[in-house]
């Protein structure tokens, strides 16, 4: 059975190795070893190791022996008799394989391992030494441990034993010999010796300018410098190199500035392009001023006509009638601005709202010849359109201008509405008056007809009486009755047709019907109007 006890099966664990066989009453039924920290159930009095029963209760809450319900709250340390019995069991030291033959009570094993046992594996106390040793061997080891600290005899520094050899090559206190002059000195003063050693070969101090001489320090001043061509030029070279240095630093500073400026101009370009994009048609470059006085004649004359029509109709509107006409051209805008602004800004700052005018101005080209800004007095249309423009201020933002345009539109709409209403009222009044006049004329005509009829009847009676006198009979004249009547009617019609001829003799003009709100006309004007209407009809 040796194979069983080697390999994985002999691995050290925390299980005690008991010297004698243990009473089966002290065996935990879960781990089959004597109790460690014996714990009993209050309910069924079964006893287990503390760790065993806690692990078992994690799986299922019942007693592993009799399956009665059991929780961690039902557990308590076993009685002191049980605890003492298991604590006093004799165990072997777990270091037995290393050679420890110690046996003791189980409760004392921990202190034995901690302080007494010489067969416990410990690690060397030196840094970097990872060797594991038995406690009894540690003293022997540390005397010869390669990681132990030793003192350098020359410089008194603390050095690891393993590093001692490499330390010898760099110890500052070690005496070394100069390879040039064969003098000896400690390594720490090597630097200072090198700068003074007269036999050390050094290049000429002007080697950077091209002198190829190399010789010992001793011969430099005596032999070489007297003949070195660069020595005579020393002052000149120094001056120039200083100047070049200054120029280089200045150049560097300038380069920095250029870079900064480029950065700034780049960001400005970006800003401008963003602004351009957001302005859209409102943007125009600084050179191309405002559009010229290209006010088309047609809108202007139309405007005049319109005003002549409007003004007699509504004096109320005349205050803002001009304002409601939107931007006939930008010169008007200019004029308007002139009258409003105390300090008129240069025209280049104004952005005409209508892209159409941009096209005009660009097609005209040569913005320098084009007076971009017309003072109100010199403006060709200034007299006509002194304030006739929408209240647009180009100094404010696009949104502001748009909103002012919008308000102008609203005012315009209001004006249109009121004009419409007035037109309606006027038309209605005129129609009423016409109707009244026609009615009165009809009455007059009727009166005349009656008079003519009366005259004709008189005349007929005379004719009849004379004919009856001459012929003796009613119908002896040979004129049929119908014919007579036709004659009468024809006379009547002709008298109507020539009414104006007989009018002055008319004794009583028929009374005119009462007029509502219409203007009163003298009778003569009525007659003239009636004639006029009659002719027209």
């Amino acid at each position: 059975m040796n194979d069983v006890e080697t390999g994985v099966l002999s691995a050290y664990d925390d299980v005690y190795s008991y010297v004698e066989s243990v009473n089966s009453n002290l065996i935990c039924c879960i781990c089959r070893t004597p109790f460690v920290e014996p714990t009993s159930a209050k309910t069924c009095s079964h006893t287990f190791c503390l760790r065993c029963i806690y692990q078992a209760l994690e799986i299922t809450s019942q007693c592993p022996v009799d399956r009665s319900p059991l929780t961690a709250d039902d557990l308590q340390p076993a009685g002191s008799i049980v605890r003492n019995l298991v604590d006093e069991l004799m165990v072997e030291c777990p270091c037995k394989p290393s050679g420890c033959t110690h046996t003791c009570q189980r409760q004392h094993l921990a202190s034995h391992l901690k302080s007494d046992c010489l067969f416990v594996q410990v690690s060397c106390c030196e840094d970097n030494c990872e060797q594991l040793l038995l406690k009894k061997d540690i003293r022997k080891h540390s005397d010869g441990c390669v990681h132990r600290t030793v003192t350098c005899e020359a410089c008194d520094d603390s050095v690891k034993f393993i590093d001692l050899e490499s330390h010898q090559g760099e110890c500052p206190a070690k005496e070394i010999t100069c390879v040039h002059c064969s003098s000896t000195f400690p390594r720490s003063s090597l630097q200072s010796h090198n700068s003074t050693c007269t036999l050390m070969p050094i290049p000429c101090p002007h080697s950077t300018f091209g002198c190829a001489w190399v010789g010992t320090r001793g011969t430099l001043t005596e032999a070489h410098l007297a003949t070195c061509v660069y020595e005579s030029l020393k002052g000149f070279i120094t001056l120039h190199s200083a100047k070049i240095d200054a120029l280089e630093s200045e150049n560097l500073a300038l380069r920095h500035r250029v870079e900064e400026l480029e950065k700034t101009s780049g960001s400005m370009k970006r800003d401008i392009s963003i602004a351009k994009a957001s302005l859209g048609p409102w943007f125009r470059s600084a050179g191309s001023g405002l559009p010229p006085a290209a006010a088309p004649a047609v809108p202007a004359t139309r405007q005049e006509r319109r005003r002549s029509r409007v003004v007699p109709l509504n004096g109320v509107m005349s205050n803002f009638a001009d304002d409601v006409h939107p931007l006939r051209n930008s010169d008007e805008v200019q004029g308007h601005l002139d009258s409003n602004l105390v300090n008129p800004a240069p025209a280049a700052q104004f952005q005409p709202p209508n892209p159409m005018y941009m096209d005009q101005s660009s097609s005209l080209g040569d913005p320098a010849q084009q007076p971009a800004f017309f003072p109100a007095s010199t403006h060709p249309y200034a007299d006509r359109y002194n304030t006739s423009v929408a209240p647009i201020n180009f100094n404010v933002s696009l949104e502001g201008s748009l909103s002012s345009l919008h308000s102008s539109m609203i005012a315009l709409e209001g004006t249109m509405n009121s004009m419409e209403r007035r037109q309606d009222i006027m038309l209605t009044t005129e129609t009423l008056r016409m109707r009244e006049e026609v009615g009165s004329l009809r009455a007059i005509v009727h009166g005349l007809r009656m008079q003519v009829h009366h005259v004709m009847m008189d005349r007929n009676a005379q004719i009849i009486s004379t004919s009856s006198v001459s012929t003796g009979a009613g119908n002896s004249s040979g004129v049929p009755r119908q014919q007579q009547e036709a004659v009468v009617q024809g006379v009547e019609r002709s008298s109507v047709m020539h009414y104006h001829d007989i009018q002055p003799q008319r004794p009583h003009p028929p009374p005119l019907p009462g007029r509502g709100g219409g203007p009163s006309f003298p009778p003569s004007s009525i007659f003239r109007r009636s004639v006029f209407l009659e002719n027209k009809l």
Partner: protein
Amino acid sequence: MSSVVPSHNILRREYIELSKKPRERFSVGLVDESNLLEWKVVIFGPPDTLYEDAILDARLSFPPEFPLLPPKMRFITPMWHPNIYNNGEQKGEVCISILHPPGDDQFGYEDAGERWLPVHSVESILLSVISLLSADNPNTDSPANVDAAKEVRTDLRGYKRKVRAIISAE
């Protein structure tokens, strides 16, 4: 040293004990010397039963939580028994109540009192399996092999013949 899995200590102790004192009815070994969780088991057929003189090869697979959770037992030798699976991935696995984890009422027809307890040992498991095989009239209440259970109920003689035939074929 508490990092050692608890199951390793108890399994090592049981293994050493069973190896030192061989039992009459079975013998145990490790599938892999470095893995204490996989055991080889050879069961000698109990005398005066169907399995007399038979040598049955089986495997015991312990969970790391052993003994808190039960091991699984699987026959390598072909078996014909109502409580041993005969097909699928579980072929050869022994289905007895003491090898079912506690508390887990997986099948619904088992008394919780029959299931695994931490106090069971490898020896007690193997003795339970041997007594299962020794039973003259196998329990067919919760069969793992339905066909075998049906045969036990309808044709016990045929069942016994079949078992003998399988055993002797091996």
